[in-house]
């Protein structure tokens, strides 16, 4: 059967040209891969910017960067990593590819809208990057665009703001598409509690995309209007209140943190059963906790503003609510541990990344609690402690999960197997490198090293140098992954439909999948993760009739 690489639907019927066949394809799998190609290019650009920063920070004093250049660099790094990479990240790439496969659907509900989201994303990328080459330099506000500085600075924030706005629109459309797809296109028999947990993660994420993104969208639009027309909503000289900007910004951006992490949690819940060959422990608890994290996540934004002027009562409430989020998150982590307990764990590459991510994320989460408590936060606010905390959750947590997912679904997407040995070495490099990179920054921040400075006191030199070495290690690990995947494509063995003995629907169809995924749609009246002596319990014949 020809795979989706060989034939496709496009917006304009049958196109001959292979490039046009890709960029106008309305097949969710191709769109997912296009996102992947662009996003990882951007990711490596942002890693490049980070390495440049780390090089500048290798010794105290100015090395080779102007302070202003450093400001632009961390803004570029932050904006790219957050708005262009990790927020759209997992849903747009693996989500787009896997959601219909795992649901037993032939595509998402609105394939054309899906393509439109991709085009909007590309437009956002072009606008965002344009200021790199149009002369006046990149924005220098940090990725948070705090007013009134973002209204006053001469740097090129206008195009960056517009880009963020358009990217928001793209993200809303993806979320909308996923919500409708999940409600409408589940295979017959598959009720909500028979859906794989990755879909639960995407579902909770999609609601955050839909309900939170418009808030930041209009807020950024107001800043755009302030810069161009002089409307004074956040400008204190005109009576506007910049603290309101912070409120509105974080009402979106805190839930956005969960928007990044929930799909990652979903990946963990897919990989663990496959490599322990057992049903996941506490399926319902994990599913419900995704939804409740999304819900509570709306109520905690104030913990970013303990130092920006807020009543004591408000601070206490926000602090309390912040601690509350730890509960459903803890539930998930305990369920994962319980799944592994006494299981025969198969330590292949995806599993290693997932285990690493659980460790890193736990560190990131616990240090997050110290920041959610008012007292420590006053001390640690805007120090490297914060920077270390969020890199632990996002890079060490989410991105490790993402990479784990990429390894896990690599055979499904490409039809090939990658080299396990190379994969494990790359993981080792990245894991050791990551902890060498960020652990010292907890200490530096605790001792008072502020963030967003291109220089530091000589006392902090040793921490920054260890950190610099870590950065090189993790970067080489990342490059090695690319090499591993490339080699797998060139000379990997054929994967077959189900190399991991996994149970969810996507593993019952050929790898890579054919154009409309399922020749026949299966009837799903079974739990997503059922094993019988290490083998998937449920088996179908080629017509998708149950034979076991």
């Amino acid at each position, binding site marked *: 059967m020809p795979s989706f690489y060989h034939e496709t639907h496009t917006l304009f019927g049958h196109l001959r040209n292979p490039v046009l066949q890709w960029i106008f394809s309305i097949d969710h799998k191709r769109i997912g891969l296009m996102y992947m190609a662009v996003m990882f290019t951007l990711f490596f650009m942002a890693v490049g910017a980070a390495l440049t920063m780390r090089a500048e920070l290798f010794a105290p004093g100015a090395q080779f960067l102007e302070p202003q250049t450093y400001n632009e660099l961390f803004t570029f790094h932050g904006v790219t990593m957050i708005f262009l990479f990790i927020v759209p990240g997992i849903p747009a790439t693996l989500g787009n590819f896997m959601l219909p496969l795992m649901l037993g*659907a*032939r*595509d*998402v*509900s*609105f*394939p054309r809208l899906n393509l439109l989201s991709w085009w909007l994303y590309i437009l956002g990328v072009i606008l965002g990057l344009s200021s790199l080459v149009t002369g006046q330099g990149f924005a220098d506000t940090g990725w948070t665009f705090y007013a009134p500085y973002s209204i006053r600075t001469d740097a090129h924030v206008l195009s960056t703001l517009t880009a963020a706005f358009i990217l928001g629109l793209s993200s*809303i459309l993806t979320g*909308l*598409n996923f*919500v*409708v*797809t999940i*409600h*409408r*296109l*589940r*295979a*017959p*028999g598959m009720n909500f509690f028979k859906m794989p947990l990755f879909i639960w993660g995407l579902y909770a994420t999609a609601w955050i995309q*839909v*309900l*939170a*993104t*418009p*808030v930041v*969208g*209009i*807020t950024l639009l*107001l800043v755009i*209007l302030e810069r161009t*027309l*002089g*409307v*004074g*909503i956040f400008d204190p000289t*005109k*009576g*506007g*209140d910049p603290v*309101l900007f912070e409120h*509105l910004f974080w009402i979106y951006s805190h839930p956005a943190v969960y928007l990044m992490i929930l799909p990652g949690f979903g990946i963990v819940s897919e990989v663990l059963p496959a490599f322990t060959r057992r049903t996941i422990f506490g399926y319902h608890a994990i599913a419900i906790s995704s939804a409740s994290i999304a819900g509570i996540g709306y109520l905690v934004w104030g913990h970013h503003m303990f130092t920006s002027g807020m009543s004591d009562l408000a601070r206490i409430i926000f602090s309390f609510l912040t601690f509350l989020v730890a509960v459903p998150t803890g539930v998930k982590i305990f369920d994962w541990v319980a799944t592994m307990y006494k299981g025969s764990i198969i330590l292949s590459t995806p599993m290693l990344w997932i285990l690493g991510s659980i460790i890193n994320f736990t560190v990131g989460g616990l240090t997050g609690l110290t920041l959610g408590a008012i007292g420590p936060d006053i001390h640690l606010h805007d120090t490297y402690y914060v920077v270390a905390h969020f890199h632990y959750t996002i890079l060490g947590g989410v991105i490790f999960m993402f990479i784990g997912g990429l390894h896990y679904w690599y055979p499904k997407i490409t039809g090939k197997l990658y080299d396990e040995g190379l994969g494990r070495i790359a993981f080792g490099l990245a894991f050791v490198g990551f902890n060498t990179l960020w652990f010292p920054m907890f200490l530096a921040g605790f001792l008072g090293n502020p963030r967003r400075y291109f220089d530091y006191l000589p006392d902090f030199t040793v921490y920054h140098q260890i950190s610099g070495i870590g950065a090189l290690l993790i970067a080489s690990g990342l490059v090695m992954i690319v090499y591993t995947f490339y080699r797998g494509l060139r000379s990997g063995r054929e994967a077959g439909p189900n190399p991991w003995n996994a149970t969810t629907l996507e593993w019952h169809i050929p790898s890579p999948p054919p154009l409309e995924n399922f020749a*026949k*749609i*299966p*009837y799903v*009246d079974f739990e997503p993760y059922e094993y019988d002596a290490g083998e998937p319990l449920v088996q179908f014949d080629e017509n*998708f*009739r*149950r034979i076991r």
Partner: protein
Amino acid sequence: MQQEMAYDAQGQPHPVADFHDDYGGAKLGFWVFLMTEAMMFGTLFLLFAIYFYRHTESYVASSGHLDVWLGGTNTVILLVSTYTMGLGTMMLRRGRVRAAVLLVGATTLMALIFLGIKAVEWNMEISRGIYPGSGVLDALDRGEILFFGLYFVMTGLHGLHVIAGVALMSWVLLLIRSGGIRPEHTIAMKNVTLYWDFVHLVWIVLFPLFYMIGV
């Protein structure tokens, strides 16, 4: 086309949902889209409320400058226009295509009149030197700057939605002509009607906020 079936272990058939022409999906999708719109306008209303609380007096004073009669006329126009639009969908469903076309046409016309009146109003403010960033406005007190800032942003954004409405209704008319909307296939029309309802609802809230507090 024949309904596709999936068979369970007992051999019982179950209908398979398909993304082509999924009426329920299109409807759900549009509702979700309206939620995002509501969040966006909701944020602006929140800002309005906060600044109103802080600068009540200057808000009331500035509101007195707006023309209640023009604003009120526009409110009536929008109310009538949602009615005609809804009636249009009903007519179409009953197979009375010509009546539907006339009603949608009338709605479009009313939307254009709304925009015309809005333009007159904006023009009145602007000719008094009151617009965002103007010297006259920036010399007023802070509550008034905020009031007019929000006035132009919110009515402007609403106006953009009306313009989009005109475009959508013209598209509906085209679709009816080309057979894309038929009595037994009205989802696009229903969604546009829903959209127009939303646009009118936003105005129903905007109007008292901006025009009535000074009365």
